[in-house]
């Protein structure tokens, strides 16, 4: 064989090896921060018992944004197992819920209720008195006192609070007037 042919074949082989090295897929041992769930690895991960992976607050927040009905401990437990936000969300999507950490059980509030947006707007708690006078601490004596609003300036440092009380007291006076007018008719 000619010498130049030998050199050509060898350089071709070397070029092939270099190209192969360049286009080789990224090795599986990338740092955890890339977090790309690989289906082949996921099953292996789940089978392994809970190893405590670093779970940051931002990871919990991301999962919570997707599934607000889950408790923080549920999310943390799952993230510790999977080590990845994507894998935890996938698990939630598959099962509709996440397992509770050992020693903890479901809270009395059912987890499925928050799923329906429209039903979430159904009658919630109507706790609290709707009476604005009670809420803002305006007494019947205050309403009788003609200097009440003017006096508030000294007692109350908060300007907004003073304005709110002013709006309520004035509205009540107007409303009383309309009531007496309708009664008069």
């Amino acid at each position, binding site marked *: 064989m000619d010498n130049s042919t030998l050199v050509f074949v060898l350089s071709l082989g070397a070029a092939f090896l270099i190209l192969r090295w360049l286009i080789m897929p990224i090795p599986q041992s990338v740092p955890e921060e890339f977090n790309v769930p690989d289906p082949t690895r996921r099953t292996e991960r789940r089978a392994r018992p809970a190893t405590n992976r670093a779970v940051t607050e931002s990871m919990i927040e991301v999962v919570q944004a997707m599934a607000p009905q889950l408790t923080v401990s549920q999310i943390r437990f799952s993230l510790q197992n999977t080590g990845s936000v994507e894998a935890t969300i996938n698990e939630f999507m598959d099962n509709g819920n996440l397992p509770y950490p050992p020693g903890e059980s479901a809270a009395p509030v059912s987890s499925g209720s928050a799923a329906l947006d429209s039903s979430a707007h159904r009658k919630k708690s109507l706790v609290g008195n709707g009476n*604005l006078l009670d809420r803002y601490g305006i007494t019947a004596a205050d309403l009788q006192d003609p200097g009440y609003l003017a006096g508030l300036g000294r007692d109350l440092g908060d300007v907004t609070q003073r304005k709110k009380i002013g709006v*309520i007291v004035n509205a009540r006076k107007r409303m009383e007037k309309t009531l007496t007018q309708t009664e008069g008719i």
Partner: protein
Amino acid sequence: MKPRSTAQKRLLKEYQQLARDLPPGIVAGPISDDNLFEWDCLLEGPEDTPYENGVFRAVLKFPTDYPLSPPLLTFDPPLLHPNIYEDGTVCISILHPPGEDPNQYERPEERWSPIQSVEKILLSVVSMLAEPNPESGANIDACKLWRDDRDAFCRQVRVQALKALGLL
């Protein structure tokens, strides 16, 4: 109180502006000094509407990524209105997250964007009280009542207004 996040700085700025130059019939401000993310608002009912002479309290809850996401406005106690859910949550386009409407009903410019403000929200709510939009109703019973029996609707609203002012 030292504002830290973008949301807190922006809320503080809006609060200062509102306190200086308040639209008539609207008072709003944080419930407590150490939490800027929850505001207490009082809205006077617009004239020539069933809500006239009434004062209605609403709570504005801001997300931590405000102004990227819109706040949530809830009337407490809930107010009878076609565009207010039974739990008091207000449903108007300016409070909907930015972007395209999945139902193609609202234009993107009508929805929330960081250039909107608390003042614009509250003004929109006052105009919503004056002109309900039963086409995109939130409270079906209120929609029906408003459309079919306006007198009964007005009576119920007036009862709510009287209760709020301690006259009933």
